[in-house]
């Protein structure tokens, strides 16, 4: 099976559980005191999808969301974006719209957008009604799901939904670029001048 690398960028206010969602998905682990994303450029997990394997490269904000300081580079080449809010905090849902706008301005045009209402285990102190969030997600053609990173609810489903929305690989697209990454060790020199 062909492995396809898919970059997914996470967005959402500080403290809504972005890192917890990834941590649950990638390591099936939940830590109440997760340190805010130190040291991880991105986390990876591979899941099967039809005839392909999708290797998600999940980029966390590394705290850069705090001052709205996510560089355009953060969004480059993303296949999908997960925008997380906290169902117990209305303001995190309100600012979701700003993240959507930010994504429209900086993200790729064909990006798959998923909205995740996290902390669904705390629904007794819910502030954001499911209906409202769902309607908003529909209005921007985004995937919508409520998740609980703590109880491992709907985390896999979130990424499965994303997988299904990823358009099949366009062979032309695949071939067109002759760009490359700099790697270690560098390619050995085959054609030196002198």
């Amino acid at each position, binding site marked *: 099976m062909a492995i396809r690398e898919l970059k997914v960028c996470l967005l959402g206010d500080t403290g809504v559980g972005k890192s917890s969602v990834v941590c649950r998905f990638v390591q099936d682990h939940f830590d109440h005191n997760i340190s805010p994303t130190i*040291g991880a450029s991105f986390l990876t997990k591979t899941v099967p999808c039809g005839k392909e394997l999708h290797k998600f490269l999940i980029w966390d904000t590394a705290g850069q969301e705090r001052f709205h*300081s996510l560089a355009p580079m953060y969004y480059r080449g993303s296949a999908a974006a997960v925008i997380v809010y906290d169902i117990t905090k209305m303001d995190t849902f309100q600012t979701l719209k700003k993240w959507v706008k930010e994504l429209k301005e900086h993200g790729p045009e064909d990006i798959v957008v998923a909205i995740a209402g996290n902390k669904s285990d705390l629904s007794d102190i819910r502030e954001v009604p499911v209906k409202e969030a769902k309607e908003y997600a529909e209005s921007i053609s985004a995937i919508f799901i409520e998740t609980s990173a703590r109880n491992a609810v709907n985390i896999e489903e979130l990424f499965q939904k994303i997988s299904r929305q990823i358009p099949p690989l366009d062979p032309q697209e695949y071939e067109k670029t*002759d760009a490359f990454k700099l790697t270690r060790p560098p390619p050995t020199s085959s054609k030196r001048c002198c």
Partner: protein
Amino acid sequence: MLYWINSNILPKKIKCIFFKKSFIYNFSHFRQAYYGGNWASFTFSGLLAWIEENKEAFSKEEITEWMNDIKEGEEILLLNSSDKSIMNVEVFNFDLFLTVDPDEDLKEEGSSQKENDLFLTVDLVEDLKEQGSSQRKDDLFLTVAAAESFESGIDKSPDMYVNEHPSEALEHNDVCTSSQKKNPELFLDGKKYVNVCKTSVAETRKTITYSQIIRESRRFNIDLVSKLLYSRGSLVDLLIKSNVSRYAEFKNVNRILTYQNGSVEQVPCSRADVFGSKQLTVVEKRMLMKFLSFCIEYEQHPEEYADFKERTFSDFLKTKNLTTNLANFILHSIAMVLDTDLTTEGLRATQHFLQSLGRYGNTPFLFPLYGLGEIPQCFCRMCAVFGGIYCLRHGIRCLVVDKETRRCKAIIDSCGKRISLWAFYCGEQLISRAVLITDRSLLKADSEQLISLVTVPPLKNGQPAVRIIELCSSSMTCMQGTYLVHLTCSSVENAKEDLSPVVSKLFSENIKTGEKGEVEAERPNVLWALYFNMPDFSSVERSSYDLPNNVYVCCGPDSGLGNDCSIQQAEHIFHQMFPDEEFCPPAPNPEDIVYDGDGAPPEESLFKEHEESEVGDGEERTLDTKHLVTSTTNEAEDAQESVKEIPSE
């Protein structure tokens, strides 16, 4: 530019990467923000906004009530809060016909910014119908004429679009009349139009219009600084060593061209090029190969150039039995040194070029996808991943300095205030820059997707050697069907005077029908041009400033092609700050990360916080800081009000 990192976020257990280019830029006036300062790259409309910002008159503002925050034993050091290091900004828009049509939106894709006032210099071409126009009666033709016209607002104008139109339409139109009364719809409310009289010109081969450029604004990533990476240069090494390379993709520069004997030619630089060259005779090929072979190990043959150590490389080349053509190739396109540079410098540069050859491709150079502005962002990302926090949109108004220890104790944050301090711009060496959007490559080839470096020797004595980098759309720096062309040289006069002679020689700007000769028809048309000067502070010494001893000076970009100068400086500053730390140690692979469960309190919502700070415009905050790094341009600053939220180690 002020960069800083806080000691709290540099605990021993995490190696924070701190890099010179990693800094925060404040564009407080418009509340725009971007990474990279003078190293940044912009979308087309982002660049228009930047142009506006740099045209604004410098204004001094009074020191206000925040002075009360200064305690006894402290003094303040005021900083410029806006970037006034950019000078002589001129914009030219060529041969673009604008049509106003209320049904059409001229809007950048995905842009949701609010509409700004539109300032536009236009030609009204009157009564097209009488002149054989095939256009609809209601259409208005506006020729965008000249400088200082396209302001940041244009992309947000709802009712402008550019009309592609037949060449005959305006051919006879040499009278230009302002027709405000006849065309009232042109004068949209709240918008200001200036009429400039200029002959309209037809253009047959044009395919790209200004409205397309605006609409595709996001496809452009226009760098303020134009440089390439030497495949074996220190930036490439650093990117690989630190694993920052994982954030960026690169393309090879495909061709090295030069302007010689009135035409653009390819420079043979690899073995394959040399032997495959049709311009060179067999004898020339041998001579060139022999000389290049010597250069790659010149240190082992000191006798070859011992007599020329004090003389110029150009003189040395004359003794090497090279034809003038070859000597020029080597001097201008391979070594890329000046006529006045010494032999050892020329040999070193030639060697550096040759060593980089073949590592990744047929030329020694790499270019990052999306532009050079990606590089600072990549380092910022790495820094953020290790706990560094960047805060755009917050200026530093001043440094609070302890009188006794001469250490910077705090900063005071600003919101749009400007206070002049170090007026050290004048007298510095300048870099002249031009950015062109063109419709075809300087040298036609089988592929349209090539990145080319073009070296242009001084056209006349006293004029500078100009370096051109032509980027194709697959470099992700411009829209399809266009080329983004960067011109750079050390300033002799201002940017326009230094670079426009080269632009006139190599490109077609003044496209008057009938006047265009055969040769000129082959040249790329300039659709849009920007000229500006930026300071080259590469030689500035820290000791020139009376600064607190924990404030470090970073130079801005230099005019060289490579990045070695900046990397060296970054490393030097880093070691001054953290003598025992490794500079840019390798970042771990994602798989190697172990969450240690180190607690951190829940943080405030970004937007909430941000909104609050907007409400409190002009309000100041005092922040603790141990290390401050400042660049000589000191115009833009970052702040880090999150300090108090970060758990101490």
